[in-house]
């Protein structure tokens, strides 16, 4: 501690402190938010060194490999754009399903007494504590062929009914059966089921505030003007919560873009998403950090692009 600081009058020393504190906080936040992203961005232009390391560089090779393939210009491969497409596809569907299920639930909760509402919200908040790993483990058991849903359906005779009814070719095409049995695991269905389940509580929690704030006399006014319940929902309630609905959809979508465990466990290898290949590149088999970083940047840019497009669409109307 310097003599000058020790001698400074306490009041003068106290005044600038908040400013420094604020600056330090800003710096910390910037460091925590921006630094990892900048590091990934920089690495994505770097070069792989055999044996699992990388060096600084300024090459676009990683991005070229992502969009055009390893062997470009001799051959074009769209494996990674396809992975990106699966990421977006699963995340969008998962978010949409979760919202479609959560909306009537949140709506029904807001119609209950305050006590009941509080109990439901507490229950749903508690279910948020289940991590992706827990959820996936649970569904893994539920969907497994020997002890889960397929076994029950077989015991109940549903499997035979579906077979006799000629549904099996279609189910096989959808990855939901092999020629002998129903099987739900490693299918798009299982992936979407797990993803929907993971974000469903978030969807309810996100939709509850705007729905409970909605003036109940809006719906009543519509009813006195001749609108049936479904029409009230379509012409009054949904438009009134359109912005929160879009916001929730985006949040869930971006969250699901990063889903990893559900994809590794439930998705057939040829339909897996970018998160899996990123992990493989950074930590897994290929050990190519710069290429993993490039994939991450593309995924992040896609998320940003979707947010931007939806925000514009939301504001325009």
């Amino acid at each position, binding site marked *: 501690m310097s003599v000058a600081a020790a001698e400074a009058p306490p009041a003068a020393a106290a005044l600038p402190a908040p400013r420094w504190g604020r600056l330090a906080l800003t710096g910390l936040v910037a460091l925590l938010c921006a630094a990892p992203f900048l590091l990934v961005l920089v690495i994505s232009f770097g070069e792989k060194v055999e044996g699992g390391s990388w060096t600084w560089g300024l090459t676009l090779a990683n991005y070229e490999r992502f969009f055009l393939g390893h062997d470009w210009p001799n051959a074009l491969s769209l494996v990674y754009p396809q992975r990106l497409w699966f990421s977006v596809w699963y995340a969008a569907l998962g978010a949409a399903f979760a919202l479609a299920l959560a909306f009537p639930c949140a709506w029904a909760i807001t119609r209950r007494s305050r006590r009941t509402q509080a109990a439901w919200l507490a229950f749903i908040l508690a279910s948020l504590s289940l991590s992706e790993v827990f959820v996936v483990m649970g569904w893994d058991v539920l969907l497994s062929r020997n002890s889960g849903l397929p076994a029950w359906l077989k015991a109940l005779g549903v499997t035979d009914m579906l077979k006799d009814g000629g549904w099996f070719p279609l189910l096989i095409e959808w990855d939901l059966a092999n020629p002998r049995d129903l099987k739900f695991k490693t299918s798009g269905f299982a992936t979407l089921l797990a993803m929907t389940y993971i974000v469903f509580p978030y969807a309810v929690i996100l939709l509850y505030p705007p729905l409970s704030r909605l003036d109940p006399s*809006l719906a*009543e*006014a*519509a009813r*006195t*003007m*001749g609108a049936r319940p479904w*029409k009230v929902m379509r012409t009054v309630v949904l*438009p009134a919560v359109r912005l929160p609905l879009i916001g929730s959809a985006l949040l869930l979508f971006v969250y699901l873009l990063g889903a990893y465990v559900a994809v590794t466990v439930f998705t057939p290898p040829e339909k897996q998403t970018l998160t899996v290949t990123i992990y493989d590149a950074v930590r897994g088999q290929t050990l190519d950090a710069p290429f993993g970083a490039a994939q991450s940047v593309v995924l992040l840019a896609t998320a940003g692009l979707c947010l931007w497009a939806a925000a514009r669409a939301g504001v325009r109307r």
Partner: protein
Amino acid sequence: MGALSLSGVSKSWGAVTAVSDLSLDFPEGQLTALLGPSGCGKTTLLRMIAGLEAPSRGRVLLDGADITDRPAHVRRFGMVFQSFALFPHLSVAENVAYALAIAGMARRDRLAKAEALLALVQLDGYGDRRIGQLSGGQRQRVAIARALAQEPSVFLLDEPMSALDAKLREEMQVELRLLQQKLRVTTIVVTHDQREAMTMADRIVVMNRGEIEQVGPPQEVYDRPATAFVAGFIGKANILHGEARGGAVAAHGALFHPERPAAFRDGSPVTLACRPEAVRLGRAAREGANQLAARVSFVRDVGPTREIFLDAGPATLTAELGAGEREPFSVGEPVFAELPPAALRLFPRAA
């Protein structure tokens, strides 16, 4: 079209009774005000009429037909809500045309009709505005136009003025009354403001604790309140508690004779009410009864009138004098307050 009647209507939630066994006719084309303190069941009654709430017992009849089980969207009574309940995602014209859109009217026709309705409530040219761009008074006009668009057989308003400031409220009361008289639509207004009820209504229904206290034209309800509650709720009233004695009422050491002898058994508890503007003040006791010795405790000039607050032992009285009247009474002065026989209203009181 539009004669509404209620027969034995009750509404309760568990042990709480909001409206109990209420029968009432709403004559066609008239404006009826449901007046009462908050929690008296008037809004619940209006919601049952609209079909937004199902009565626990009793029937609702429209032109003789039982409509108790008809849902709100079939009754299609236009309703103006306390919050106005305008749809924020629609323009002013689209709000007004909502009922017409639901009914399947073509877009051009319904927007033309919305424009005509907006002209009716003096908002011509506002059709393209957003709801957020309107003032409170304009929102109310939009809500009224919207409720009238479907040409309802019964027009309902739930505390329609409560979101407006005092000056605008008075203007809108007159305007709404004129509009109702022009359209001759059966109208029911819920309000807790007796001035509002008296300004607009053909008939006032005074409610208290889920029951009707009195039904009648405004002036009659004011001049001849049927119960002590009505006397206290409509306008101001001096209330004295006493007991019957030989056709008169003994209260606070004085004897009060009504115009006609009261038919109470001697000794039974009686409440006595007298309007402040009927109270006469003098410096000396006059001949006859109906006088109470008092002391001036406070004087208040409120524009056209002067209110003199009086202490008479345990009782307090208010006398309202025209500002032009001479005799400036000052605080602390001993006076005699005379409650003229014609101005006295007597009510039985639970012992």
